């Protein structure tokens, strides 16, 4: 199976962010970058599909400035075969514009399966993958937590709120991956060294017109400080009183 996986370079999320000088990005000082979490699951799922079939190719694609090459190399150190950088130095927030650029590249590839993480963990729009499918005219299954193949069809499970759907579509198709499908493997040094030699192609990105702009990033309002009501079960009556009279949730 020829599989394309679209990945995004995002900063590590377990830090306290500061807003950058221009107000529309995070301050990158001291930040470490990696493959966006859900994209990582997608890469891992793709590698497992290839390994199970003992055949196929996994190509990773990313849109961005030259610094995404490091992220593409990371995916290749996990086992992806080759990478394509769609070069675009300025950040793009318009999912449709991004989808246009990705679709243009993917359409030339003859892929059986196109995979995305269900959303990028930074901008969190959860739209790009779906839009790429629409542009390519391919069926898409979003936010799936299980994926199987049966007679030319992709069969998947989507988690809903407190329930789930069993969903299927014919191949070729696009899928976006939710958590639960696979834990991304830790690249061995062997993989890291091999990745240095794998092919990475850079092409200009054909980003469309942008009707969505990011005006500003800010930190969420601080919650007012709370308080410890008391210790042990003796504090319960006071808590119930506060919930009733102060918070008015009881």
């Amino acid at each position, binding site marked *: 199976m020829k599989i394309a996986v679209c990945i995004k370079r995002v900063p*590590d999320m*377990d*830090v306290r962010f500061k807003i950058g000088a221009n107000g529309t990005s995070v301050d990158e000082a001291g930040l470490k970058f*990696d493959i966006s979490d859900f994209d990582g699951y997608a890469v891992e799922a793709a590698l497992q599909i290839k390994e199970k079939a003992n055949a196929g190719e996994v190509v990773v694609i990313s849109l961005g400035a030259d610094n995404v090459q490091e992220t593409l190399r990371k995916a290749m150190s996990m086992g992806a075969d080759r990478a394509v950088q769609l070069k675009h130095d300025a950040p793009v927030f318009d999912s449709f514009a991004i989808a246009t650029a990705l679709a243009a590249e993917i359409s030339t590839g003859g892929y059986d399966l196109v995979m995305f993480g269900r959303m990028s963990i930074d901008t969190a729009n959860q739209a790009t993958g779906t839009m790429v499918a629409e542009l390519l005219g391919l069926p898409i299954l979003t936010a799936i937590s299980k994926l199987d193949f049966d007679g030319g069809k992709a069969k998947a499970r989507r988690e809903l709120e407190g329930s789930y759907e069993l969903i299927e579509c014919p191949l070729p198709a696009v899928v976006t991956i939710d958590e639960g499908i696979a834990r991304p*493997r830790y690249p*061995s*040094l062997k993989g890291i060294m091999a990745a240095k030699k794998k092919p990475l192609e850079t092409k200009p990105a054909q980003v469309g017109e942008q009707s969505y702009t990011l005006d500003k990033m800010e930190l969420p309002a601080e919650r007012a400080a709370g308080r410890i009501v008391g210790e042990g079960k003796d504090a319960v009556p006071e808590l119930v009183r506060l919930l009733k009279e102060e918070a008015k949730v009881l």
Partner: protein
Amino acid sequence: MSDGHVLFTIIFVCALGFFAANIQRLIGELQLGHTDDSRWNDLPTRFGNFLRIGIFQEKIFRDSIAGPMHAAIFWGFGILTLGTIEFLIGGVIPGFSFQPFFLAPVYAFFALNQDVWAALVIAAVGMALFRRLTKRVKRLQGAETHPNDPLLILSWIASLMITMFAYEAFEMVAHPDTMTPMLRPISFGVAMAFSWMSPSAATVAHDLAWWAHGLLVLGFLNYLPYSKHLHVVASLPNVFLSNTSGPGQKGVMKPMDLEGDLEVFGAKDVTDLSWKSLLDGFACTECGRCTSVCPAHTTGKLLSPRKIMINVRERLESYAHAADKSTVADRTLLDGYITEEELWSCTSCGACVQECPVSIDQLSVIMELRRNLVLGESRFPAEVMPAFESMEQRGSPWAFDPGDRGKWAEGMNIPTMAEMTERGERPEVLYWVGCMGSFDDRAKKTTVAFAQIMQASGVKFAILGQEEKCNGDPARRMGNEYLYQMLAKDNIETLDKYGVRTIVTACPHCFHQIGNEFPQLGGNYDVVHHSTFIESLLEQGRVPIVQELHGPVRTFTYHDSCYLGRYNDVYDAPRETLRRALPVMNLVEMPRSKDKGLCCGAGGGRMFMEETVGKRINVERAEEALATGADAIAVACPFCMTMMADSVKSRNANVEVYDIAEVVAGQLRA
């Protein structure tokens, strides 16, 4: 020359030839390993080790029963070898003796010693056989050992001694006029028991005993290469060539060059180990002292350092003997002999290395295999992955915000290196806090306590604050050399940017890593552990403490940190610090203390792994500490602090665990 002598000469030459061929084969096997660092440097230290550990059996005596027993056999062997040489030459050249070559008293001393030591050897061998056959000594047992080998060898040695006495005695009976009772009193005593024999019968008996002895000697020599008693040949060279007691710093992991095109990372098979590790395999006598002090093994895990070394030798011989090397790849050392489970149980405490009487480095084999697992195949316990990822992404094995690193110092007016540099100042010393000291709630108290001590003592110090990153010790110990070098290089860059020369730290792992292993990557700093630092401050009288001479007498026991103690020989400074801070204090030692101290269980990256088999190491140690009756436990390491505090709590004991800095800070004048 009589027929007998001709025959003996032929046999002797054949035996020597056969032995030489075996030695050549063994050397060939050693050459299958990698080249190693120079083992010929610092000859004075090496000779010192050779004498202390080898000739004077320093480590052998750590076992108070088997120690003297083995020393008797070893020294006896050395001395008797001289007699054996005389014997063998006498077999070739009829009537040969050393006597004409030496002054009479010298020869008399020589002959007397032959007899005395032979008797001591028989006694020691008898004791050894008794121990093995009746006492069921735990460390002598183990599935990996070859139990019949030692019984054979001990009996063989006994036979050698007996046949020696026999031919000496029968010679005396056969030629009573040439008897020299003063020279060989014991042989004389035996001769007296056979004085009823006729000279001709005695001559026959003598010849039989003589031939028996000769064949046994040559046979023994040639049996060695096939037995664990190869250690007779290998151990003294091994002690000389080993680095486990110096030269250089103990416990330093082998450097690894990651730049070149590496075929194999670490070691998968014996051919990936250094020739020195292979020699270690030859030197191993299966005594089991290493395994008997291994914290993993003694709490029920599969790991046995002895088994690691026996496996190295077994695999080496199997590999060398295989005619077709391609089929041999099926059963590599890693996986074929040594399992992942064994390798991951190791806490890198170094007890095995400390204990080994022939200076074997078991730990280095374990570490090379770990490097292969992680760098070559990304095979490691799943719970370790978040630690690796966090070190890579956030510079700390735990998912704390790197921005919180200096937060413990809020309100204490402690400058960062950046701030000091901006003011054009330089500190006396850089206080390296470490990840635990920066983020762990309990360890932060130690951090604050030590900072208070320094401030009260007027020490001008700075911290790196957010510029500090994990020194990489957990990554390196778990085999992830790539991640380690990345972190270490970043830290070296930061330290060098500020021209840091002197560092003090409260964490033995940081202490060992920065002081002893950073030089491999070009980082050279003088690093002091806080126990040594505080002790010297106390000695200089710089610390304004109130020494309470009245008041309740507390009983403390101090738990030695492996990376401070065995790795760096710092045993006294923490104890002295406690005594100076609390003059009226009863310091009791645990049965396993100082260089016999039991690990807390957190080293070697084990802090980040689950312990699912057997008894928890930290519980084992807590029980030992509580059994001393102490009402307080002192530590000098944040890992030990966590492990001991947890296990003591799990035993529902009302005993507090303190870092020595906290004890001292508690005595600071308000």
